[in-house]
């Protein structure tokens, strides 16, 4: 009976094991959002605690699982055996029980200690990291004295379905018309404090290779700290269910050398260059105003009214679009690089203009206010996004009166946006 | 209210099914009110400044409450519990008339309590506290309103028992038990009110600005 069962189970189990064995070789531990490939002290600490639990569990698994298998095999009833059940009340064995309970508690202490130390370590920038991380230690530009003694702080504001990044110490804020949407930039090797806010529902900020997640709670101020020790392009994603397009709420983190970071900050503060008169881009710029884009979007130097939507002043320099869902780089080149580069997923190819333009047309064309090249609204890139649900803002009727974009207008708009380096 | 249990042989514990299930319900109801009261207290601690009155000024909750009236209605509810105890005792002795007299008293006092609550709600509403305009309004009305609903259900139950007593079917051990179970419920609702009265009303009077606030205006949320 049992052997028949065993062979039957084996029949099922064999392909399973084959699959697992085949899979393990493929299971790349350094994929884009891998938590097993830490690139900073916070993720490293979290990884170390995780590995502690893994080792504990492996040992327990072998012990308990082994005993279970042994018991099932050893104490199976043999064919022809007809003895009556053993009749005795199961009192157990106090010595065994207490021994096992004590052992379990001991095993848990093994993970409790690193857990506790990691909880405090990951809570805020540790004192030993502050001296080398304060702005005066690495940031070249002249700074306010009080600010210079602080570590860099970045405000992360979550909205359905994109992130806005602000650097209040460096003057990059939404109020100052210099906020940074969807692609956060941080300097390498120094601690950064992240302040998390939400303007609508709960979101969660997660860059697996740099730090575990902390939620953005509306009506509450959360905080975390991060540090990346390797230059590169990192992938992050909202990790708390936040409505229709939750899956499309991605973001990127660009880690730069401190000197490059300072240059980037200076560039962010610059306004957009004027567009050439009589160009297609100028036509697009006029459309940008006429079709109400300007109501939500800020373009430094061109339009300053918008504060609700992502700041577009430096749109054309960004590697992604639509909450980082659409990639503006050449996807093939990027995949090829990731497979060959020693840096793996942290390496990045530059923006590809053709891809970018196609993305822009797809994105704007799908937002309910414009038609695609064939005159029909394209499929939603991000269902429920605010460009679509314009009636949220009491500007009802815009769709019927002003919001039809022809394919040609869409093209002009994209040309204009691509000038915003 | 089910009388299914009446026929069964003596129970394993000697406690009647109906009494036991009422105790279990009350245990659950403790958690229910505990959650509501916690919600209220947590928000009081978080936003200690009170409420915005009809003129748009920040006000202490003390200004809103009419502690004399609430103390009176609390006293009335306590007295109703006393009458309820008399009604239960009358029922145990088989004195149906005395039971009816006392139960009418309980119902009457319960109605006075509800009347005070209705008056209080309207008064607060006109003073500017609504369920929509502040967290305090939400927690206060839902907490005390839920308690009021409990009182109203208790009154309905007692009214039913009162009329039932005229059918001649309310009597003996089973009848006394039915009344006793209703009494347990009534006493519980009273005790909960004592806690609400303390946690929601009285603590606002500890010190000049209540237990939560230490001066106005702290926060104009």
């Amino acid at each position, binding site marked *: *009976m049992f052997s028949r*069962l065993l062979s039957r189970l084996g029949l099922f*189990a064999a392909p399973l094991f084959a699959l697992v064995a085949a899979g393990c070789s493929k299971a*790349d531990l350094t994929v884009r*959002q891998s938590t097993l490939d830490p690139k900073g002290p916070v993720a490293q600490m*979290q*990884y170390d605690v995780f590995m*502690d*639990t893994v080792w504990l569990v492996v040992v327990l698994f072998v012990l*308990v699982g082994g005993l279970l298998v042994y018991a099932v095999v050893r*104490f*199976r*009833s043999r064919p022809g055996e007809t*003895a009556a*059940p*053993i*009749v005795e*009340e*199961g009192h*157990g064995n106090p010595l065994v029980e207490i021994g096992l*309970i004590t052992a379990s*508690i001991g095993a*848990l202490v093994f993970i*409790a200690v*690193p*857990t*506790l130390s990691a*909880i405090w370590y*990951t809570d805020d920038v540790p004192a030993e990291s502050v001296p080398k991380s304060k702005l005066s230690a690495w940031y070249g530009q002249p700074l306010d004295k009080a600010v210079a003694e602080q570590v860099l702080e970045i405000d992360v504001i979550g909205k359905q379905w994109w992130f806005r990044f602000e650097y209040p110490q460096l003057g990059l804020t939404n109020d100052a018309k210099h906020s940074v949407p969807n692609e956060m930039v941080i300097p390498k090797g120094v601690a950064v404090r992240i302040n*998390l806010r939400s303007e*609508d529902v*709960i979101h*969660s900020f997660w860059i697996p290779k740099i730090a575990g*997640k902390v*939620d953005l709670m509306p*009506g*509450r101020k959360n905080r975390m700290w991060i540090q990346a020790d390797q230059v590169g392009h990192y992938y992050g*994603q909202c*990790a*708390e269910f936040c409505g*229709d397009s939750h899956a499309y709420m991605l973001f990127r983190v660009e880690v730069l050398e401190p000197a490059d970071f300072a240059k980037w900050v200076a560039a962010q503060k610059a306004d957009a260059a004027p567009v050439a008169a009589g160009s297609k881009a100028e036509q697009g710029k006029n459309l940008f105003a006429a079709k109400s884009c300007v109501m939500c979007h800020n373009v430094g130097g061109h339009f300053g009214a918008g504060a609700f939507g992502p700041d577009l002043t430096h749109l054309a320099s960004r590697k992604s679009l639509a909450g980082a869902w659409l990639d503006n780089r050449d996807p093939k080149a990027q995949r090829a690089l990731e497979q060959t580069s020693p840096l793996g997923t942290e390496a990045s190819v530059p923006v590809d203009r053709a891809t970018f333009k196609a993305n822009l047309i797809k994105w704007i064309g799908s937002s309910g206010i414009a038609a695609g090249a064939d005159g029909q609204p394209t*499929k939603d890139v991000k*269902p429920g996004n605010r460009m679509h649900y314009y009636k949220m803002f009491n500007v009802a009727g815009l769709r019927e009166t002003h919001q039809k974009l022809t394919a040609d207008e869409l093209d002009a708009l994209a040309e204009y946006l691509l000038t915003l380096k | 209210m*089910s009388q299914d249990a009446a*026929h069964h042989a003596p129970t394993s*514990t000697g406690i009647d099914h109906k009494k036991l299930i009422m105790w279990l319900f009350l245990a*659950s109801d403790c*958690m229910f009110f505990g*959650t*509501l009261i916690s*919600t209220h207290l947590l928000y009081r601690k978080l936003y200690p400044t009170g409420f915005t009155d009809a003129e748009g000024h920040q006000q202490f909750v003390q200004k809103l409450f009419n502690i004399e009236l609430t103390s009176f209605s609390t006293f009335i509810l306590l007295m109703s519990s006393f009458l309820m105890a008399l009604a239960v005792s009358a029922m145990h002795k088989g004195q149906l008339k005395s039971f009816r007299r006392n139960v009418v008293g309980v119902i009457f006092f319960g109605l006075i309590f509800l009347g005070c609550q209705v008056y209080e709600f309207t008064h607060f509403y006109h003073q500017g506290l609504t*369920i*929509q305009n502040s967290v305090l309004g*939400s*927690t206060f*009305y*839902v907490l005390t309103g839920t308690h009021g609903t409990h009182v109203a259900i208790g009154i309905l139950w007692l009214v039913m028992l009162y009329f039932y007593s005229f059918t001649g079917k309310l*009597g003996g051990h*089973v009848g006394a038990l039915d009344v006793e179970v209703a009494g347990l419920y009534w006493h519980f609702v009273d005790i909960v009110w004592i806690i609400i009265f303390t946690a929601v009303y009285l603590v606002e009077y500890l010190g000049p600005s209540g237990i939560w606030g230490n001066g106005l205006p702290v926060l104009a*949320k």
Partner: protein
Amino acid sequence: MSHDAHHAPVASKLELAPERSDLGLYRPDRTRGLLDWLTTVDHKKIGVLYGAFAMLYFLIGGLEALAIRTQLARPDQTFVTARMYNQLFTMHGTTMIFLGVMPLSAAFFNFLVPLQIGARDVAFPRLNAFSLWAFVFGAFVLNASWLFEFGHLAGWFDGFAWHQALTYTDFAPANGWFSYAPLSGTFGQANAALQAPRFTGVGTDFWIIGIQILGVASLAASFNFICTIINMRAKGMTMMRLPVFTWMTLVTSFLIILAFPAITVALIELMFDRQFGANFFNPSAGGQPVLWQHLFWIFGHPEVYILVLPAMGIVSEILPTFSGKALFGYPIIVFSGAVIGFLGFAVWSHHMFTTGLGPVPTAAFALLTMAIAVPTGVKIFNWLGTIWGGRIRFTPPMVLALGFIWMFMCGGFSGVMHSAAPADSQQQDSYFVIAHFHYVLLGGVLLGLMAGLYFWFPKIFGRMPNATVAYVASGLVILGFNLAFGPMHYLGLAGQPRRTHTYHAGNGWEDWNFVATVGAFILGIGVFMAFANLVYTAFKGPKCSSDPWDGRTLEWSLPSPVPEYNFAQSPVVSARDAFTEHKHGTKRIAYEADGGEAGVHMPSQSWMPMLAAGGFLFIGFGMPMMAMGIPHAGWIVVSGVAVLFAGIWFWALEGPGGYMLKTPAVSPTPAGTPAASTSAH
């Protein structure tokens, strides 16, 4: 006194004379067929109904799961829309927890508890029927949201003014089973109609009222079971002689009555936010969304044990039976069950490690969570101790029970990993969590419940399920399950967040998602086969003896199917595992001199529990229709409350009724006693 039980005893309820209740209405005692099932107060029939509905919803929830997996099989799929996906996972979670596992556990509670403690019914038979119908109607309300959703997608409502006025048009809930505010709640100032802006449509209102109704059903049932277990034990059935399944029922019921009030209040507060513009969770008015999470998980974590403990109880019955050996360390198993239940109230915030609790609470909840691993481990050790030195007979229930231990152990291990809060901040809301709780709830609980179904099915219907089909189905379930959820450990660690309806190629998630989908379909086929086997058996299966497994507890001493009076004479117990002692040991089950020609008292059937519960149907449809803005929908709610109160009023006034049923003559030998041991006395 309102007893109507003075009639002469009858041999069958069909022989009863027509009889009016105190209300003057005929009692439905003499019904048969459908009317009998609708008015029944027999705990066994109620148990079967719970089981049938639970299996139906398991299949519906399973189909939802397969739709989810189909969407995720390949990157950038468009099998369903983003919103439909969100609705699918919301309803999948809600259905499996509240309409699948809980009612299936309730089916076992209902059928087994009175039999195991030697009682003839539960303490409040009509309340029991009320619980059943409240569950049925609540489940219907919840799932009716799909009908509205499909009607909306098909454009049936397009012509109506109320439909055109809706900003959000999700009719099936898309808020997740956890329903975090403010996504499920409001944001901003309420308008004159007391409606504040929100993020989700009436689907959430369906969800709120549906869960509220199901909560009433669970609470009423739990009061009843605690009362039954504490108060209706046969003579000699001390608390420490209770079968472990009954013990776990008791602990579970206590968890329900203490945990459900938190969600009830949270739902009331959320409902006030949505329907009346209150500010409990409205951040723009000072409400704290984190409060919703606390209230939800103060309920939600005990809920996990509400789901798991009954399965643990089932396994604790099956392992001794097929090991031919008493449960190892009975007192410790019972005690650890109670400790798990108690500690279950002290670990809720481990679901909230990423919400910014601060280091001290995080540390405290991390340590408490680790602590709960100890009693859980104790159970596994004791199950091991039970089979150790026994003689293990392999039968479908035993194989499933062993599978339960294995899968539950794996789920427990990943649970220990979550307790380390810093590691959890990487795993929270990733596929790793999905893998973890499916190992616990599917590999653990579902296998346990399936083991229970195969174990007690012969008792319930007197027919034996086909063992070969059962083995194949179990094999498919275990294989498919591991194939579906094993890879999710990797996916989570590779950074795939849960509740996302699609993902790009290039993240390294493609292959394992495909494997998981294949596994899910194998699992689906396995579960369907197992259920089909059972349904077939219920009607057509081969008859079997009343004690086919050499059972250990009182229910096996009864004929199969169990007669409506359960025990012809009330048993008097003198040992734990009373029936094993009776058959193989020295301590016999004695019987009281009741029943026989004098008959035993049977409760009357009644329409009132269903009528009262029917009020919930009106309330359940009325509240969401109010939220839709359908004119006069408020009156549906009002009439629902009226029906509910009228039902309870009539119920109270109709009198309990009851009649005397003759049972077979006094006999010291319980049915099913093996011939070998009958000769001994």
